[in-house]
């Protein structure tokens, strides 16, 4: 069995008074690509944010490389080697493309160089002096992913990277995610687009009402397709 990189146990989280996560359990092995699947509003994004320390109040356990992170602020968590690509992409309008790419500080050695990132995303090189938010949706998504590859983080948390994108761009994002996995990145992916997720992931966790209710490997998906459709309401 591969070494467990991230282990989440009984994770609960709150936004103000609202109790969103009611005890989430899952783990991600080093080099694995794991998805969190589920309907809208079940707590997938909150799970990522809670791992990253962005949610106000959280309890339970988030262990990364056997180190407990649940009580740490997000800047400390990032420095351990986790990088987060938010659902809304979080491109800064006051920064140009290259400034956006250079913004996250390197936290560990071994990150991609700017040249490697431009090789992976040639569009970004062409538009490196453009204002970040002037890019197309697909380019902004590539910028948001490219931005966290420089940092040397080993675990990438990607929140709905295909949302609102044209099929041809979705396909390109899929190729990039596979390439990142091949380069040794561990990826925790939140997705609504199950067909996209099924094509890239090793394992899937199903989230419902702020809990993980099921897990299946990529090999088990085809025999459990009916169950999965019931979970996702598709």
């Amino acid at each position, binding site marked *: 069995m591969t070494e467990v990189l991230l282990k989440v146990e009984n994770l609960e989280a709150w936004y103000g008074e609202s109790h969103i996560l009611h005890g989430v359990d899952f783990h991600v092995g080093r080099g694995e690509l794991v998805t969190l699947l589920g309907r809208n509003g079940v707590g997938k994004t909150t799970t990522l944010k809670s791992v990253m*320390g962005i949610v106000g109040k959280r309890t339970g356990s988030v262990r990364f490389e056997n180190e407990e992170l649940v009580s740490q602020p997000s*800047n400390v968590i990032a420095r351990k080697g986790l990088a*987060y690509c938010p659902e809304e992409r979080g491109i800064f309008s*006051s920064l140009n493309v290259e400034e956006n790419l250079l913004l996250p*500080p390197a936290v560990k050695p071994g990150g991609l160089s700017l040249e490697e990132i431009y090789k992976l995303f040639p569009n970004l090189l062409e538009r490196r002096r453009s204002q970040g938010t002037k890019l197309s949706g697909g380019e902004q998504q590539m910028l948001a992913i490219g931005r966290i590859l420089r940092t040397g983080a080993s675990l990438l948390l990607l929140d709905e990277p295909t949302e609102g994108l044209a099929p041809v761009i979705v396909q390109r994002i899929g190729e990039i995610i596979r390439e990142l996995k091949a380069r040794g990145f561990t990826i925790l992916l939140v997705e609504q687009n199950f067909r996209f997720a099924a094509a890239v992931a090793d394992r899937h966790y199903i989230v419902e009402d702020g809990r993980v209710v099921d897990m299946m490997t990529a090999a088990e998906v085809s025999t459990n397709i009916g169950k999965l459709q019931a979970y996702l309401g598709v």
Partner: protein
Amino acid sequence: MFELLGIPPQALFGQLLLGLINGAFYAMLSLGLAVIFGMLNVINFTHGAQYMMGAFAAWLLLGIFGVPFWVSLVLAPLIVGAFGVVLEKLLLKRIYHLDHLYGFLLTFGLALVIEGLFQWKWGSSGAPYENPIPGGGNLGFMFMPYYRGFVVVAALVICLATWYGIERTRLGAYLRAATENPALVQAFGINVPRLITLTYGLGVGLAALAGVLAAPIQQVSALMGTSLVLVVFAVVVIGGMGSIMGSIVTGFGLGVVEGLTKVFYPPASNTVIFVIMAIVLLIKPAGLFGQTK
């Protein structure tokens, strides 16, 4: 040409220089306010008091320890900036999540307390500070006191250096990004609360630096910042809240406009900036360089 307008060149250029000097202070102070507002979302009404503290720090450093002006130019902003850091850590950081009004009340109250304390200790008559570059030169069309020329140049350098630091450096990029989305910047591994504290310290330090530069021109007194800060707020509103270049350009520009008004229609010189503010608010409510959020 000047005779045609009925104005002697000495008067015109004299007022222009005075306008530039006032503009230099407007620019430096509104710059600090813009930096603080951009990052903390707090309108720092303590700014005038912190400007006064800069002048007092220089005056006290000279009077008690014999520290010369040029050393105070560095030391006083550091001392007052450190005071700002303490203020942010103890008080301001508790109100970021609240409405602007609370920031206004807190910083306004602090200004009253600080100015009251200085007035109680040192009175309100004011004390002179010796001019570090006495004398002046005849430029042919006007007499230029060296120190005043120095203030204009120094203010320009300070403003442009601040602009460069914010718009062209990595630290400045953190600052701009954290202004937009602090939670995400922190999730990239940057200690945003510390960045906010340092930004406040920087803004306060800028106010204090302006105060040190003002000491040899004005009397060092507890209320020297009160009337100035009113005009500076008008400048900030005209330039646009949070805009760095806007603060610099409008600061100098309005100083000159005020100076020229003194030449051509003196009765309006005290109100011209507020009239411009009203017009700008009617036409472009976000300010000349501001962006509507």
